[in-house]
C-alpha cells in the first residue's frame, strides 16, 4: 500500500496550478486535502506522475459573505467550517454537516472543494450543497464559469468540470432568518460515509423547500415530490407523514434503479427523519 513514484509540486497560486493542469501529457493531478487522493494513490487505484498541491494557495483559502450568499474558497477545510471559521449561510447546517464528516484528523485536512470535485455520491457536501442550491466556480484556460449544483454532479466521481479546470470557490446562497433544516445520516459506525443521507431545508419566507437524498444512489436524488409536500407545511402531523410517504415513493421511482426492500425502508426513514427534524420534531 505504497504509491508509485510521483513528482510533487506545491502551486503558489491559481495560475500556477492551471499551468500544471494545462499540459495534458504531464498527467498532473491537483491535491487539496489529500484525504481521498492519497488513499487512492496508496492502493494504486490511481497513478499520477505529478501531484500539484493546491492546499496552500491563498485565494483558495478565502471566505467571504454578502447579503445573500457565503463564498468559500475550494480549500476551506471541513474542520474550519465545523469550528465556525467560515461564515455560515444556513442556520448552522454547514457546521453540523462538517462536524459529522469522518474523524477530526480527516476534517483537519479534507476540503469542501476536494469533496465536491471528487463527487463521491456518499459524500456529505455533495448532498448538502445540492440541497442548498450552491454554485460552483471553476477556472480553466478559458477563464471562469459558474456551474449550478444540479448541473455539477453528473455521476459517481464525475462532475461537469474538465481536467484542465480548477474548482476555485463555492457560492452558497443564504437561507432566510427563519429557515430550518434537517440532516439525517445513517452510518454503521461513527466516522463512516453515510449509507443514506437525508437533507431537508425549509425556507417558508422564500416559499422554498428542498429535499435531497444522498448516498443511496449513483448521484444524490433531488426529491421534488417530497419537497412539494413539505412546502408551506407548518408542523409535523400524521397527515403530513402519510403525504410524505407517498411523495417519497414517487421520488424513489425516479431513481436510476429500483431500491431493494431494505434500501427502501432506510431511505424513507432518512428523509422522514430529516423532514421531522426540519419541523422541530426529533
Amino acid at each position, binding site marked *: 500500500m505504497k504509491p*508509485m513514484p510521483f513528482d510533487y509540486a506545491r502551486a503558489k497560486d491559481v495560475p500556477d496550478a492551471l499551468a500544471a493542469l494545462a499540459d495534458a501529457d504531464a498527467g498532473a493531478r491537483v491535491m487539496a486535502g489529500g484525504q481521498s487522493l492519497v488513499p487512492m494513490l496508496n492502493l494504486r487505484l490511481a497513478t499520477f506522475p505529478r501531484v500539484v498541491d493546491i492546499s496552500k494557495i491563498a485565494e483558495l483559502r478565502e471566505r467571504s459573505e454578502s447579503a445573500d450568499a457565503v463564498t468559500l474558497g475550494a480549500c476551506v477545510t471541513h474542520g474550519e467550517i465545523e469550528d465556525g471559521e467560515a461564515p455560515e449561510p444556513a442556520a448552522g447546517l454547514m457546521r453540523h454537516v462538517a462536524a459529522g464528516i469522518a474523524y477530526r484528523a480527516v476534517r483537519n485536512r479534507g476540503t469542501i472543494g476536494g469533496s465536491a470535485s471528487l463527487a463521491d455520491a456518499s459524500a456529505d457536501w455533495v448532498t448538502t450543497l445540492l440541497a442548498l442550491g450552491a454554485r460552483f466556480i471553476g477556472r480553466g484556460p478559458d477563464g471562469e464559469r459558474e456551474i449550478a449544483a444540479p448541473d455539477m454532479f453528473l455521476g459517481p466521481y464525475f462532475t461537469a468540470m474538465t481536467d484542465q479546470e480548477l474548482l476555485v470557490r463555492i457560492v452558497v446562497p443564504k437561507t432566510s432568518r427563519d429557515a430550518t433544516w434537517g440532516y439525517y445520516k445513517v452510518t*454503521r459506525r461513527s466516522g463512516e460515509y453515510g449509507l443514506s443521507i437525508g437533507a431537508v431545508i425549509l425556507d417558508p419566507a422564500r416559499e422554498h423547500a428542498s429535499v435531497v437524498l444522498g448516498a443511496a444512489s449513483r448521484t444524490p436524488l433531488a426529491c421534488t415530490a417530497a419537497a412539494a409536500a413539505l412546502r408551506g407545511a407548518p408542523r409535523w402531523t400524521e397527515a403530513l407523514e402519510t403525504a410524505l410517504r407517498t411523495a417519497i415513493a414517487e421520488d424513489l421511482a425516479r431513481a436510476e434503479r429500483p431500491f431493494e426492500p431494505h434500501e427502501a425502508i432506510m431511505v424513507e426513514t432518512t428523509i422522514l427523519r430529516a423532514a421531522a427534524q426540519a419541523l422541530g420534531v426529533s
Partner: protein
Amino acid sequence: MAAPSAPPALAAIEAPRPGCIGDRVLRNEDARFLAGHGEYLADLDIPGTREIAFLRSPVAHARIRSIDMPPGAEGRVFLLKDLGDIHPVRAVLTTPGFRGSDYPALAADTVRFVGEPIAICLGATRAAAEDLAQEIVVDFDELPPVVEIEQALDPASPSLHGWPDNICFVSTPGGGEVDAAAKAAAVTVTREFRMARQCVVSLEGRGVLAYWDRRLQELVVYSSTQQPHVIRTVLAKLIGVPEHQLRVVAPDVGGGFGVKNNLQQEEVAIAALARRLKFPIRWVEDRREHLIASPQAREHRVRLTAHADARGKILGLEAEAVVNAGAYSIWPWSAAMEANMVAGILTGPYAIDAYKGRGVTVVSNKAPLGPYRGVGRPSACFTLERLVDEIAAKVGREPHELRIDNMVRPEQMPYRTVTGKLFDSGDYAESVRQVAAMIDVPAVRARQARQNGTGPRRIGLGFASYTEQTAHGTDEWIARGLTEVFGYETATVRFTPDGKLIIEAAIQNHGQGLETTLAQVAAQELGVDPADVVVRHGDTAVSPYGMGTFASRSMVMAGGAVGRASRQLGEKVKRIAAHLLQVKPADVTLANNCAVAGARSVPLKSVTDAAFLHPENLPAGEDPCLDETTTFQPLSGTGAFAYATHAVVVEVDTGTGLVEILDYAVAHDCGTMVNPMIVEGQVQGGVAQGIGNALLEESPYDSGGQPLASTFADYLVPGAPEVPTVRIAHLETPSPFTAYGIKGMGEGGAIAAPAAILNAVNDALRPLGVELNETPITPKRILTALHDARTERAR
C-alpha cells in the same frame, strides 16, 4: 492424566497484600507504551535492511503457467526455487481420518486463494519493492474456484488438494441416549445458524525481519509472533537450520488475538531466504494484506436441534457444524480446529447427558482459517444460546431462568461433560442470577412494555452464558490430535547481585499485562516490589523453552511456573537470610524487599550480596547464586474452566436497521484474580471484539473467490463510540487444579457477546415475527427480515 506438578503449597490467596496477587497494580509496561517507546517490528532499525513486498495471487484458484521477470529482477525477486531445499508446511492432526495437504512457503505450481504469496520482492523501501512486484507478469491458467460452504460440500465441485472431495475432517463427539431424549421430549427446536468469516485485525499487522548473524553463526528471525520458541522449533525443521543456530525474537507485539499464533508462510519464506543473503530483510504486513491474506476466522454453519421437557430442561442435543477452513491447513492447529472445537463444546455450561455432534471441516479457495480470540467458542455459544432463547420462547419462560435450571450445579463439580471435558469449579447459575440483578430484568421488561410498538425503536434484552476452557493441559492437546503437545510453561526467576529480580518467561506479552502480573506473582512469593521486577519474554535467547501466549493460558501456566520457581528460590533466600540473621529458616518471611524474622530483618540486597559476591557468608553447603527454573502443568489435563453470563439491553431501530447497545453487564468467574484491573480490561476488550462479531465484521467473497473487504472502508470494526462501558461483577471460585486457583480468562469477553446481542435483537423483534440467526446483523439483514416478516403477515 498428566503428571501433576502444582505443589499444593501454591494455594488460593486468602487476603491480597499490596503489590501481590489480587492487587490492582498499575501496569509496568505502560510507561514505555504511553511514552511511545514500544518497539515493534517496523521500528527495528538494523543497518542495511531491505524491505519486502510479496507478490500475491490476484486470483482465487489457478495453475501458474509461467512467471515473467522484469529487468533488474536478479537478486531482488525470489521464488520458491530460490529458497533452497525447504519443506512445505504440513499441518495435520494425528487423528485417523484427517486429510493432510501441503502448504508451500511460496506458491510455485498452483495458487489456492487471493493473497497467497508467490514471490518475495526486495527494495530499499517498501514502495520500491511494490514497484518491482507490479512489474512481474504471472500467466495464470484459472481453475474454477470453490468459495462457499455449500460449494465445498458439493461432491461435484473441483477438489482442491486431490482428495475425493473437499472434506478435510469429520469429528463425531458425543455420548448418551439422544434418541431416547428425542422420544421423551415435549418440545424439539431446530435452527440453522451462521457466523460470518472475519478478519482478526490486530492493531499491528504481522511482520518478519531476518538475517544471518556471522559472529554467532545463527539465523536471527524477528517476528511479530505470540510463540517464539515453538516457531523456532518448526522453522528449524522446515528450512534445515539446526535449532540451536536459530533465534526467534518477538519484539513488542501490537496485538495478536490468535492471528500471530500460527506458523506463517511469510516466516518460512523470509527465514529461508535470509539464510542465503548477506543483509537483513524485513516484511511489514500492511492493512490490505492483513485483511485478505492473514489467517481469517470463524465462517461456521451450524444446525442445532434441542430436545427439551415442557419446562425447557434440555434432555438432548444434536448438532452439525460445518466450518469453511479456507485453502490450507495451518500449523500447528490444523484446518480442523474450529469445527472440532464447536462440535466438542456445544453442550455449554449445561448438564446435558445426551449429545450427538458432527464437526465437518471443508476446504475452499479462501484465505486459510486460524485461531481468533475464542476460537470455536463464540460460534458454539452463539448457536446454543440462541437456541436456548428459542426454547424459552416455546415453553413461555424467561430465558435467564431457563438457563439457571439447565446449568451444571456447584455440588456436581468437578463435572465431566458428555464430551469429556472436566469442569473444575464454580456456581454457574450464580453468574446468571448476578447479571440478571445487575441488568434489572423487571425494569427492562417494563420499559419494553412501555416503548415497544409505540415507535420505530424497540428494546430487547439478551443473555448468554458460556464456559471457557483455559490453560489446556497435556491431555487436551493429545485428545485433539496435535502433533506437538503444549501442556506446560516455563520460567526462570533470578536475582541480580544488587537485590533486584528478573523473570525470564517463554510466553509473549502483547497486551495481556504479563510484565505486571508475573511480577505480582513473584512479589507474592519473594516480597519484592513488583514495579522493580523486570519481566523478559518473547525471545528464545533469553528464556528457557516454553509454548507462548494463546488459549487463555499464560496467567495460569507462566504464572504457575513463576510461582513455583519463586517459591523454591524463596526457600534458598530464607536459608541464607536465616544464616545472616542467626535464626531458623522456618522463622523467616519475605516482605518489603527484606527477609524478616521477628524483630530482626535483613534487606534482600544483603542476601543477594552473599549469594553472588560473598560465598564466604553463605551457610555451609549452600551453592552460590540465586536463580531457579521450573515448569508448570495444571493438575487437570483439560485445564481450568472459567465461565460467565453476559446480559445486554439493545435498542433496535426498525427504520434504519441499526442496533444501539444501551447497557451491558457481565458476571464472570476466572478463579483467583491476579490483577482485577487487568481482568476487567480483558473483559471489556473481549466484549468490544464480540460487538464487532455481532454487528459489524464480515469478510465477504464474491463468487470468483475475490475478498470484497480489503480496506477499513469495507471491513468495519467497532470504534470507541460503539463500545459501551461494560459493568462487571466478579465471582471468584479458585480452581482446584492450578497454582493459586487462577483460571484463564483472556478470550471470555469475546465469546458471549455475539450470542447475547443477537438474543437481545431477537427479543426486540420477536413480536414482529422476525428471527435473525446470522452474524453480523447488519442493517441490510435486519431490514430485509423486517420486510419479509411484514410481507408474510400481509399474506
